[in-house]
């Protein structure tokens, strides 16, 4: 047992801190899912993406031949944690590309695909922004139920159907899409394929869906005879389900360190806030209820930290953490919900003030998290889906459905 970060990792941490202070001066973000935000935020995020790419951090754990630095998983962990803490925007470029498209292409993409798409993502340019189209109106938690059809016609697939809850589609240059290529199979997990879709192809209609906070993250996508070259097939035709399981695990890996960083910063802000508020003639920070709530939140955060360390360590050992990724996702959700709720209880009536308002407390960050957490909990698989994965993969319990 040894929980010390190496000297190299600590040096990187210092460098990222310097970068954040220099680049974000005056902009204290804390929690940034840049695709959720306004056009000017997106633009700023993309400027930072470019700088991160130049620093070699954007895709640091990727091999050098793919525009990475060949950094260790622990260096990447430090980077993600610090980026979360400082709220550095642009670290994920709409999530998909850096999160799982790049790593998945390295595993099962063709040489041509690797050469074309991976360096684009690593460059931090807007042409490296991806979205992911998995969900459909009748394929949510029952993800294998997807119906969007891709029928092979010569050297093209012809796409027809509909996707929903597609984050970042309105910003993305490319789409990582799961489609049905064989509708005759007995088991619905078979007959699914993964394609790379050029978002500028004719026949794609993007319709925004505003969330209840009025923020544009999601979109509906409609496909009307959209042509996709067969060379855009990723992996093996009709075996897409198995590639997807791997991609989803990539998606959940980095959640713990990233949210740990963000939440730690938010907690610091909340602690500071309680010190400046008078309540019953004393500082709010002296209130036993407040003290206990914040102590409880700290325990959860420190537990999340350990889960993040554990998964990074397992990856560094060459293991593929499946249940651990699901556990970290589910635990992240719990921590997020409790921190957001406690935060609103501390700012009290000000928790109804809009996150953008000049009257908001703690720079609107608590309200932002409070409004976002139910959606973030559902994204990348609900709590129930994660717990089914843990039940089967770790505990060996029979499938409940």
């Amino acid at each position, binding site marked *: *047992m*040894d*929980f*010390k970060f190496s000297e190299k990792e600590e040096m990187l941490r210092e460098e990222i801190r310097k970068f954040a202070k220099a680049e974000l001066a005056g902009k204290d973000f804390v929690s940034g899912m840049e695709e959720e935000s306004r056009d000017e935020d997106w633009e700023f995020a993309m400027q930072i993406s470019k700088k991160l790419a130049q620093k070699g951090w954007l895709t640091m754990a990727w091999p050098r031949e793919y525009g990475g630095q060949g950094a260790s998983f622990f260096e990447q962990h430090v980077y993600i944690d610090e980026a979360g803490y400082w709220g550095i925007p642009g670290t994920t470029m709409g999530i998909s590309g850096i999160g799982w498209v790049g790593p998945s292409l390295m595993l099962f993409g063709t040489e041509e695909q690797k050469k074309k798409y991976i360096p684009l993502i690593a460059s931090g340019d807007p042409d490296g922004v991806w979205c992911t189209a998995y969900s459909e109106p009748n394929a949510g938690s029952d993800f294998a139920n997807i119906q969007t059809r891709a029928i092979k016609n010569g050297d093209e697939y012809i796409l027809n159907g509909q996707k929903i809850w597609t984050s970042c589609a309105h910003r993305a240059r490319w789409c990582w899409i799961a489609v049905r290529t064989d509708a005759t199979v007995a088991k619905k997990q078979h007959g699914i394929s993964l394609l790379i879709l050029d978002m500028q192809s004719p026949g794609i209609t993007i319709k925004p869906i505003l969330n209840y906070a009025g923020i544009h993250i999601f979109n509906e996508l409609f496909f009307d005879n959209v042509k996709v070259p067969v060379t855009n097939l990723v992996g093996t035709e009709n075996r897409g389900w198995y590639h997807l399981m791997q991609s989803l695990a990539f998606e959940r890996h980095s959640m713990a360190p990233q949210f740990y960083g963000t939440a730690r910063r938010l907690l610091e802000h909340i602690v500071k806030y309680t010190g400046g508020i008078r309540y019953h003639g004393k500082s709010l920070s002296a209130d*036993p209820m407040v*003290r206990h709530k914040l*102590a409880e939140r*700290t325990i959860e955060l*420190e537990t999340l930290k350990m889960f993040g360390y554990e998964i990074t360590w397992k990856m560094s050992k060459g293991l593929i953490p499946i249940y651990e990724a699901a556990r970290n996702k589910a635990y992240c959700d719990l921590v997020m919900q409790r921190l957001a709720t406690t935060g609103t209880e501390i700012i009290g009536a000000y928790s109804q003030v809009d996150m953008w308002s000049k009257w908001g407390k703690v720079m609107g960050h608590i309200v932002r998290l409070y409004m976002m957490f139910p959606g973030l909990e559902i994204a990348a698989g609900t709590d129930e889906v994660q717990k089914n994965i843990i039940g089967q993969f770790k505990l060996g319990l029979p499938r*409940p459905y």
Partner: protein
Amino acid sequence: MDFEFNEQQNMLKTMARDFLSKECTKTKVRELEKDPKGYDPDMWSKMVELGWMGLIFPEQYSGTGADLMELAVLMEEMGKNITPGPFFSTIALCAIPILKFGTETHKAKYLPPIADGKNIWSLALTEHSGRFEASDVNCIAKYDGKYYVINGEKWFVPYAHVADYLLVLCRTESGHKPEDGLTLFIVRTRSRGVKSELIQTIAGDGQCRVKFKNTKVSKRDILGKVGKGWDMVKYIMQRATILKCAEVSGACQAVLEMTTAYAKDRTQFDKPIGSFMAIQHKIVDMLTDVEGLQYLVYYTAWLLSTGGKADMQVSLTKAKANEVYQRICIDGIKVHGAIGFTMDHDIGCYFRRVKAAEYMLGDTDLHLEKVAVGLGL
């Protein structure tokens, strides 16, 4: 960073598991709950032979020089099996502060008999309030010119009735703060005026009320400095607390394991009950609790054995251990249904020990408050 045990830690873990699963069966645990001594001297001497008593002592005191991390590994295994007896009180509560604060004479005199299994020790700290606050210490030690004379009573002193020595926290002067003026005395239980009485506890785990009536202690038997007893209590509160957490972590792992096995085995509505989402997700939550606690314990034990700052980390781990142990047992019993509610089933052996662990070295509220202080609140 490395989450793996080293070779030595692995050997210790395997040895402890093999030994305890053979020697410390649940039948034995139930017997000992009714036994007036509360431990098995035969098993105790075998533990001595395995070198567990002197594990963390330097060689000159008949030990093997292991660190706190290794002791935590051992405590985790003891917790898995439930190992009744005065190991924790002797080693964690007493030997650890003697090693740190004792004079050469103290160490040479008291440590080898502990390593050899000849002496049992315990810490007499808590009083009538049952809490770990300095302000609750009313036991008085008055210097009569030749001896310190102790009067008062201590509660929830583990295994005092079989102990040879006690570390007794007394007030030697009244200071400005409750923490001032406390002194830790080494008291022989055979001394005049010391009387231990077993408290009938749920777990039958040998906790006592100890009365001191004009008990005389020489100056030589003061541990550390007069009036500085609370500094030592703080040290004990760190090291011994994390060892208690390691024990609790082991117990929780065992409860999870038996609950998972039962959910696979037990059939209702023609299906294993573990296939029902309501049951499965409850067990998954137990797993997340258990793994979270386990890693916090390792991390904190590592911090302490490498000399890191760990006050807040110890407290958040203890608060978590308190909450998790109770929740795991309650949910585990619910998954078992009526059978989990019986004396015959092992899960009850763990549930009976929840409160003893929770109130040993500070309850949840006390530790949450320490975390709040650590946060700068």
